[in-house]
């Protein structure tokens, strides 16, 4: 293992001057001056988000004129390639189908709970597509579609929500953290994964995800500050869907935007139309690239909307107007992309039918996978608490086994 990086802050640590201290490492990287060199702009212009959110395709599906895309010097974005757009569109359709299917399964009582990302599919898909194979994603409970778009088996992804176990996939194999409920705690795990990779000289980038409400949590602050101070390749991706359960963003923060929070940590922030997958791919793609090149962490805020209730257990009519929801129907990420792709000649009826078929196959997989009654194994309760069970756990496991054995005997006696 090579440990090469000097991961202290941009500023030389005081110990560097102290006699007898560890030899100072190579000149510490400096995100700010790097950006100034790269883009020919000031540090402030690099770190502050562009004056307006980045948007490339508007709600009507037409290309936003270049002058109105929101980009400014140092924040210019180019259109992703056709293949990338097609792959993204396909995932969008699959993602919407997954959301609808899962909501139906909850209604049918086949899943305990589902926090839907309906309306946020562009964010979900872009989050997965911007990463390379060796990169890591740290998702929240709402990011099931992103997890699947990253390649995790749909049924395994839903294990958590079906209630069989707290997680159904191997995070190390997929490089996807287990979907996290304690708000923003996962951001720090992302920071740790990036830190470990950096110490080993690997070029891993971590995408750490959270919602708008979560930005008020203490771990949000600690994670951004750690990533900045240790100069780590982490892209923090905030899906601002306007609500934290019932609480609107205005009660959460009065910052000019959530992306503006970045500058306080010494990192760059950007905001993007979260229902425009073209812009999302461009903005997240650039952020991942910059992080990989050593520009340190970045914060991307996507403006989107939670079209449905927080989960099936929530009643959104208690805190918001239908008219507000209707406004966002017009900004739907799928319909605008369909129009754009069709107009560009990238999508015809055949292709659309093929994509719909793929989405249907995933839905079928979910329906079949989740209607299968997988027997739970009571002894699993004790198996994974530690690598080796303690004597106390062995005792308790024996007690349960005995209870079950006696249960079985009395049942068979009743049957006789």
């Amino acid at each position: 293992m090579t440990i090469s990086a000097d991961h202290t802050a941009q500023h030389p640590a005081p110990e560097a001057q102290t006699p007898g201290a560890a030899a100072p490492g190579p000149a510490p990287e400096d995100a700010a001056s790097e950006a100034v060199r790269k883009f020919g702009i000031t540090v402030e212009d690099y770190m502050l988000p562009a004056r307006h959110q980045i948007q490339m395709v508007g709600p009507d599906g037409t290309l936003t004129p270049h002058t109105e895309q929101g980009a400014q010097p140092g924040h210019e974005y180019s259109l992703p390639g056709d293949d990338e757009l097609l792959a993204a569109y396909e995932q969008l359709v699959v993602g919407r189908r997954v959301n609808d299917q899962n909501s139906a399964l909850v209604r049918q009582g086949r899943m305990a709970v589902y926090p839907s990302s309906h309306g946020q599919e562009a964010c979900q898909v872009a989050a997965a597509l911007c990463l390379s194979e060796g990169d890591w994603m740290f998702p929240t409970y709402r990011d099931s579609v992103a997890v699947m778009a990253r390649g995790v088996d749909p049924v395994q992804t839903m294990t958590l929500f079906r209630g069989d176990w707290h997680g159904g996939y191997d995070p190390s194999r997929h490089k996807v953290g287990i979907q996290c409920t304690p708000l923003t705690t996962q951001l720090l795990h992302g920071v740790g994964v990036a830190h470990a990779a950096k110490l080993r000289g690997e070029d891993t980038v971590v995408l750490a995800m959270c919602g708008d409400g979560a930005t008020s949590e203490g771990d949000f602050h600690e994670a951004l500050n750690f990533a900045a101070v240790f100069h780590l390749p982490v892209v923090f991706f905030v899906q601002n869907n306007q609500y934290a359960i019932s609480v609107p963003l205005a009660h959460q923060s009065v910052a000019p935007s959530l992306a503006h929070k970045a500058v306080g940590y010494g990192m760059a922030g950007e905001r993007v139309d979260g229902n425009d997958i073209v812009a999302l791919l461009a903005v997240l793609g650039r952020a991942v690239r910059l992080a990989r090149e050593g520009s340190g962490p970045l914060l991307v805020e996507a403006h989107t909307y939670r079209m449905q209730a927080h989960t099936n257990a929530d009643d959104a009519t208690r805190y918001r107007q239908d008219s507000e929801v209707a406004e966002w129907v017009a900004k739907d990420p799928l319909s605008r992309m369909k129009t754009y792709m069709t107009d560009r000649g990238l999508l015809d009826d055949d292709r659309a039918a093929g994509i719909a078929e793929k989405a249907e196959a995933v839905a079928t997989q979910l329906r079949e996978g989740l209607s299968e009654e997988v027997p739970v194994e009571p002894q699993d309760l004790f198996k994974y608490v530690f690598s080796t069970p303690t004597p106390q756990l062995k005792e308790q496991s024996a007690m349960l086994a005995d209870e079950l054995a006696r249960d079985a005997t009395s049942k068979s006696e009743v049957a006789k």
Partner: protein
Amino acid sequence: MSPTLTTSSEANGNVSAATARAAATAAAKAEQTGPQTITLAKALNTAMADAMHADPSVLVFGEDVGMLGGVFRITDGLTKTFGKSRCFDTPLAESGIVGMAVGMAMNGMRPVIEMQFDAFAYPAFEQIVSHVAKMHNRTKGTVKLPMVIRVPYAGGIGGVEHHCDSSEAYYAHTAGLKVFTPATVADGYRMLREAIDSDDPVMFMEPKKLYWSKDQVDLDALRAEHAENTERGTSSEGRAAVARPGTDATLIAYGPSVPTALAAAAAAAEEGRSLEVIDVRSLVPFDDETICASVRKTGRAVVIAEAHGFASVASEIVARVQERCFHHLAAPIRRVTGFDVPYPAPKLEHYYLPGVDRILDAVDDLQWED
């Protein structure tokens, strides 16, 4: 086995010149081979240094652990020896320290992190309870978190508030955490090496009042013991130790209370009473076997702990022993613990701490006349 207590009155939880001097002297002595007198602080420091030598994935970080060597000097010299990539200071953010360690442990490292004081680990409670303790279980063992959270804990050093909490029960109560607490210099080395080797997370509770206690230990012999254990796949993990053999009653203690229990046993011996002292060492996993064997032999027991008694580790020990040894007991098991009050100010801590007299009073109460 019994360490000499040399707790300095200057050492009030802040860094004192005396501590630094003690550490420096200990460092010089550590170069010798064979049996030597060292502090618990030095034993812990040596355990980390040896683990870092043995495995490049072992990292140490926390607040002031770098150049300063920690406010208690337990990480002294690690940055100098291993460089700033292996032992480094973090921003002041305990949740951040623990959360980042979780991610590092997920990604191939073995972080050994320091919480500066017991009460300053509370900001990290969510990370510890919701992630450190649960990751292995929720991922069905596919993600292991080989990490050690070192916590200087408990009082007896005249520390101001928030510097003397006995917080072990919070962690022992949380399923998925191992909780170790050494009471001797040799165990400082032995148990910290085992904690670092553990594939499961360990809360390593260091009795801060014993940091400067000294004992004769042979570090090379401890290293050889560790190497041998590693080779054989054995360890002392999860085992209690008989710190002093006896026949009339059992004193069950851990961490900072072990020397107090030993002092009580010595005083009782002068009065003709033979007390066995058990050093629990590992709160999780818990060694029912050793402890119950002792109580079955003596028929009487007193549990001693600095923490508040209510809903405590001491309560758990009493419950376990009576469940298993009821018919061997000649008297109800007694507890000598801290009162159920917030840890007192320095001038009052003496009234709070379980001392020799209070232990002997409890022993006297064990229905000897029946």
